[in-house]
């Protein structure tokens, strides 16, 4: 009797933690920083944190959709590098054409991933691995292996400008988060992608346009990755194909999973993803501000990932 009561209690706590753990963690970290970190509660610091988190969030939003379909996109970092290589090539023709071409390349790359996954039936890890391996190489070939300094003020404004005191990249990331939440929650497309992630076979039998939805999801993910590449290139003031988006796939996947979207698909948490990005950003900032060396910071991040996923894992055994 007491035993069952205890298990019920434990599953209830576990379930609550799964659902709200990431929010609790973010709040706890913010409180910790307010109490123990000098200069945390300053506008400047908040701006820095948000600006650093913006590109990760843009990528993570696309990744959340892909993971929702029980997929994964390893190529997002490489697509960011492609952006970083393409922008300097076309900036001579103006900001708009350069950005448009970079975004189109990302969209095309994503659509290619989607076709490989949906029509050819290749596992997402492998399908996107090919672009990860080749994409950065292609970016380096395009840029001749060089970091290119940019001076176009219109383009650089994307990185440094602000609207109503809010940095442009943060604004873009925030608007995209709202759009994605609406896409997942309010549209047929969103409901279908979640259904496909939950049970692809059943979705096929139910007559859903599975291939079209999958290709769309990967295309959106590629487009957003390219946009993140544009934003980080503008912020850096240089196209750096060697470093842009390095290990971004891992940061994005981590943020999505920590935010409560299971790798097994069938569920997408957009607000959770935002929280996941903020959490990982806050963890990094906290560790740096307390002068912990990079090595320790990395090891602690690893432990946090394992801990967060361990909590989230119990979902599947419900």
């Amino acid at each position, binding site marked *: 009797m007491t035993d069952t009561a205890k298990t019920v209690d434990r599953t209830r706590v576990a379930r609550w933690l799964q659902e709200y753990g990431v929010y609790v963690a973010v709040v706890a970290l913010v409180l910790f920083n307010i109490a123990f970190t000098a200069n945390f509660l300053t506008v400047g610091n908040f701006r820095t944190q948000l600006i650093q988190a913006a590109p990760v969030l843009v990528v993570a939003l696309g990744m959340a959709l892909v993971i929702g379909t029980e997929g*994964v996109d*390893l190529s997002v970092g490489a697509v960011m590098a492609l952006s970083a290589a393409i922008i300097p090539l076309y900036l001579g023709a103006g900001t708009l054409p350069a950005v448009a071409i970079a975004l189109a390349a990302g969209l095309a790359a994503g659509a290619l991933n989607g076709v*490989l996954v949906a029509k*050819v*039936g*290749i*596992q997402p*890890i*492998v*399908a996107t*691995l*090919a*672009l*990860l*391996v*080749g*994409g*950065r*190489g*292609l970016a*380096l*070939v395009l840029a*001749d*292996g060089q970091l290119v300094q940019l001076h176009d003020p219109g383009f650089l404004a994307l990185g440094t400008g602000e609207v109503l005191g809010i940095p442009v990249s943060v604004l873009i990331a925030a608007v995209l988060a709202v759009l994605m939440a609406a896409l997942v929650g309010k549209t047929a497309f969103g409901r279908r992608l979640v259904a496909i992630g939950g049970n692809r076979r059943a979705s096929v039998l139910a007559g859903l346009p599975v291939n079209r939805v999958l290709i769309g999801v990967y295309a959106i993910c590629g487009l957003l990755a390219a946009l993140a590449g544009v934003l980080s290139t503008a912020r850096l003031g240089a196209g750096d194909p060697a470093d842009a988006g390095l290990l971004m796939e*891992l940061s994005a*996947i*981590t943020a999505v*999973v920590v935010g409560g979207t299971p*790798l*097994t698909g069938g569920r997408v948490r957009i607000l959770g993803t935002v929280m996941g990005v903020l959490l990982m950003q806050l963890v990094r900032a906290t560790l740096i501000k307390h002068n912990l*060396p*990079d*090595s*320790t*910071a*990395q*090891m602690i*991040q*690893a*432990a946090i*990932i*394992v801990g967060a*996923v*361990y909590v989230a*894992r119990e979902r*599947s*055994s419900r």
Partner: protein
Amino acid sequence: MTAAPTLAGQDSTRRELMTGVLQKQGAAIALVLMVAVAWLLFPRFGSLDNLRDIALQSSFLAIIALGMTFVIITGGIDLSVGSVYALGGVLAAYGSQWGFLVALLLPLAVCGLIGLINGLLVAKTGMAPFIVTLATLLFARGLLLAITSEGATTYKIPEGEAFVELGRGTLFGFGYPVFIAAALCLIGGLLLRRTRFGQSVFATGGSEQSAKLMGLPVARTKVTVYVMSGVLSGLAGALTAAYLQSGVTVIGVGLELDAISVVVIGGTLLTGGMGTILGTVIGVGIRTVIQNVINQIGTLDSNYQSVVSGAFLLVVVVLQRSLARTTTRR
């Protein structure tokens, strides 16, 4: 198949045979073709010196990919191998101040431990291998940075240390790592094909549920393959350190993806349950030959290496997939 069954009988068997051969031996055929073309186009390709280089370069990747093959056949994946490889090298160079045995055993022990953590987390908690090994990728890099005072220290292996011989020594002109890799792959192949453990590896990847019902030690099998992967990556790192005579901190980034792609090119399915060591060895050969050929074309940017490798991987998986379809659709 579209043709009428009576007439098509013979035809389709032949076609089936062809696709079967292509599916099984496609990578080997590609490797032979690539070597033949390279031999004809580049006079230097076939020189003994160059072949030695190819063999040596292949050996480090082959040792890592061997462990990865076992992991992938169980239906898992190990993203930590690149970091663990770099960590192994640093630990070997660090340990070499206490002699040969420490230089060899320290990396194997620590890397094996990381593999054990991977294995336990995957097998006992049901967490996705992808995330677990992603975390240990970060962890191993962090540990490496901590050991080398944030990457500022490079440990050299003392002059005349016997450990260097392990990486630099040669037999019949070929480096010791080549023989070590060959021996390990042979043992790995036998282990996979001829032992009870090998059967559990296949069964675990084929269908975990049925493997459990058959009473196979699924959890133990999983833990074992991750430990193997950790130890082998550490060994490859130690051999690299012996060859370079120092523990280089910046190597191994992205190596996990190289290892995964050669395993996939070699015909092992990422869904698990199927795969061969020989295929992986052939995959490693293909990867190294691509690298080597691009280096031979002096005018070609070395960045093309990854472009070609990516394109090749794409072609291989698309072919594998479409061939698999033609054989299952009949």
